């Protein structure tokens, strides 16, 4: 087969000693960067890009290194999410929801191992999909117009609504706070400044990463300080737990679905790991409601709620490479930088890249197989060391977290404004937590809201204000139908269950 011969060419590039070394380096640095709160894959790639350039690496090797950092970070992001309730990067926000409760129960090892396996499965599954469907999918991706994005976001919001099910009003308020934050900055349509208060740092909107780190990491620090002041520090038990075969069988369909979902969302330009993991989590929660065998405990340490976002965020990182390689269009923020890197090496990304430089394209794809295997091998034995982090006295751990976040955030814009803003957000995040709000909806409101608003306005400017543009093709119908299903199916399943229970009771009374 044609594809396989290309892949063979790819492996002949990827298995060169230099490239093997670079993919290992990239994956290692990526895991490290991902695990540090404040530095995500975007910044990691950005930091290494000048270095790769200065080292005079050939373009395919540089790309292999930088891509390794990218998907390596998707592995690393989960570590601090699970152990510290601080997402290491944006794609790992959802991982905190069930990962952290698991670790509080002393099952940090199990959570880390299961999420590593899910990440691996997500990556490899997505890679296989990419090898066989890339050119076709990229055609589909560009067919995704503003109306389709609007529906995708509506669908994502619907999934989100059930995310923190026990407190729907508070989830809603959280989303609204996120939506409000999303409106800050230059209005994409008219170029008018909105809610910037004349501060130039707000012209491009509120930086997503500053919000994530402020709300999660800084507020977590305040929580720790509070419990220290109240002399109420809980010691997290460190179990020697590990992932079991039964765990893996339990989540196999979850991982499969989430991989597919994450990959598809990753392929779409403009949506990345954070949206992919949120949608995957939401869908799995929906599915779990109807699962009679296993009661769902999403939000309390359900392994399905851990496997879904981890498989999805890794799959989306692979998916984001599809439009980059086939069309020269970024599929995510990080691939936008990778594209810039290609240009820096005087390689023109675009539809001809596959034909003109198959060594680069297939070398990169093959290296991702190598890299993911390396990441799994690297990650599993390290779990024991990571879990030990929890035994570090909090009086040492807290300053280190604070320091890392400050460095990370400062490195984005090189301006101290972000640091003050981050602290302010930390205070707000702390207050919200005290009021029992979940913070993830705030972040997702911010991400989804921005994409939704931009695309809704694009759709309406294309149609000249005619709302019927939102129903302009099979994709929009499909997504609209999925949204309706996501709302009603769990309700029906729920009422069906209730009726059955009532019937049972009636039987017993007879």
């Amino acid at each position: 087969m044609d594809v396989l011969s290309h892949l063979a060419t790819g492996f002949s590039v990827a298995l060169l000693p230099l490239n093997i070394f670079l993919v290992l380096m990239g994956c290692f640095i990526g895991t490290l960067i991902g695990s540090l709160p404040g530095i995500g894959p975007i910044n990691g790639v950005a930091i290494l890009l000048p270095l790769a350039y200065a080292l005079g690496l050939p373009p395919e090797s540089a790309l292999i290194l930088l891509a390794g950092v990218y998907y390596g970070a998707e592995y690393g992001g989960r570590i601090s999410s699970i152990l510290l309730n601080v997402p290491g990067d944006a794609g790992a926000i959802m991982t905190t929801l069930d990962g952290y409760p698991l670790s509080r129960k002393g099952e940090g090892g199990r959570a880390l191992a299961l999420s590593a396996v899910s990440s691996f499965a997500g990556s490899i599954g997505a890679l296989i999909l990419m090898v066989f469907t890339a050119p076709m999918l990229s055609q589909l991706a560009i067919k995704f117009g503003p109306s389709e994005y609007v529906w995708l976001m509506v669908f994502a919001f619907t999934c989100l609504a059930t995310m923190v099910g026990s407190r729907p009003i508070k989830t809603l308020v959280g989303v609204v706070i996120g939506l409000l934050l999303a409106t800050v900055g230059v209005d994409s349509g008219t170029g008018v400044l909105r809610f910037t208060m004349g501060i130039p740092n707000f012209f491009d909107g509120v930086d997503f990463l500053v919000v994530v780190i402020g709300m999660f990491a800084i507020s977590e620090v305040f929580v720790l300080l509070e419990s220290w002041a109240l002399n109420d520090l809980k010691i997290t038990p460190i179990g020697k737990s590990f992932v079991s075969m039964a765990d893996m069988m339990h989540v196999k369909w979850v991982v499969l679905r989430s991989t597919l979902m994450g990959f598809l969302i990753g392929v779409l330009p403009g949506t990345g790991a954070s949206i992919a993991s949120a949608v995957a989590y939401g869908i799995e929660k929906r599915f779990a409601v109807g699962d009679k065998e296993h009661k769902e405990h999403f939000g309390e340490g359900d392994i399905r709620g851990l496997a879904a976002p981890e498989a999805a965020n890794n799959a989306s990182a692979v998916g984001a490479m599809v439009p980059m390689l086939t069309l020269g269009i970024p599929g995510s923020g990080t691939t936008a930088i990778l594209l810039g890197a290609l240009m820096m090496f005087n390689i023109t990304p675009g539809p001809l890249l596959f034909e003109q430089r198959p060594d680069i394209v297939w070398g990169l794809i093959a290296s991702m197989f190598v890299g993911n295997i390396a990441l799994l091998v690297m990650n599993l034995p390290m779990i024991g060391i990571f879990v030990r982090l929890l035994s570090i006295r909090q009086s040492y751990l807290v300053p280190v977290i604070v320091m890392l976040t400050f460095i990370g955030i400062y490195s984005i814009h090189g301006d101290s404004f972000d640091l003050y803003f981050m602290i302010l957000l930390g205070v707000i995040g702390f207050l919200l937590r005290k009021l029992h709000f979940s913070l993830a909806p705030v972040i997702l409101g911010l991400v989804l809201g921005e994409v939704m608003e931009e695309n809704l306005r694009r759709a309406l400017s294309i149609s000249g204000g005619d709302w019927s543009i939102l129903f302009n093709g099979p994709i929009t119908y499909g997504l609209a139908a999925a949204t309706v299903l996501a709302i009603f199916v769990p309700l029906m399943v729920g009422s069906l269950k209730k009726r059955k229970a009532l019937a049972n009771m009636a039987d017993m009374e007879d």
Partner: protein
Amino acid sequence: MKFKLPTLVLAAGLATAMNAAAFEPSKPECIAPAKPGGGFDLTCRIISNGFKEAGLTDIPMAVKFMPGGVGAVAYNHINANRRDDGNALVAFSSGSLLNIAQGKFGKNLDENSARWVGAAGVDYGAVIVSADAPWNTLAELVAAVKADPTKYVVGAGGGVGSQDWMKAAILMKSSGVDPKSMRYVAYEGGGEATAALMGGHIQIYPGDVGEMVGQVAAGKLKMLAVMAPERLEGEFAQIPTAKEQGFDAEWTILRGYYLGPDVSDDAYNYWAGQFEKAYASDAFLKAVHEKGLIPLKMSGKTFDTYVKSRVVYMRELATEAGLIK
């Protein structure tokens, strides 16, 4: 990485300590007011690599990133904290100038809040449509748009008042269509707009020539006109200018560098001199070409005057278009 950091810090410390009296940059850096890999990054690479390849400097020039508002954050940063820092060159584009012209860089900041020191090069606007679009000349496109301005959608990588919008507005005006009647959709950057054009969501993209290298050759997109004063060389030599086709629509994208407003004449003249030397070097001009730009040899006072006159011109355009009230 681990080992690099301390040495860098040490080197930086030493360099500051050796600050000499006559101007010689101690710690030269180019501030790219965008994320790595973007247009401003490429602009910075032109001098950080070009100066080295031209043999103009031994001290490597660091590239620093300060994204925000097409340069607004960097402009404010320089004006607030580093007004007289002769080490910091900042990259700008005509997109930044357009925002300065509209007063979007801050209430008290205008084109006199910086010392414009040297040009990197220029690029030109281009009228781009999908390869299967029914039009083969600008005249055909304009005729179709004139017949029903609301039928076709113009999409580009910036909102109303951005460079891309200006290009579309100038094109519409030159063909007698009221710019306000066009359907305009804003995307995040040229990449997304190109995707939308390929996907058929928009029909007309007023993009840049430089970003179309490779895309036009791939045969998915057609370039109907370049918005340059005369035909370009190389890959785009076959593409007629808008002027040739009877439309007075030109848009020059300028890329260059500025220094803080209170930088000493010594430092300003040093950098202007460096640019003059660079323009004489083939290695530097090659670096400019490789980053998709056409060299523009202009520095020092001449450049400062030129930039300021551009801003005045843009202010007129923006006022005319009703962007400034």
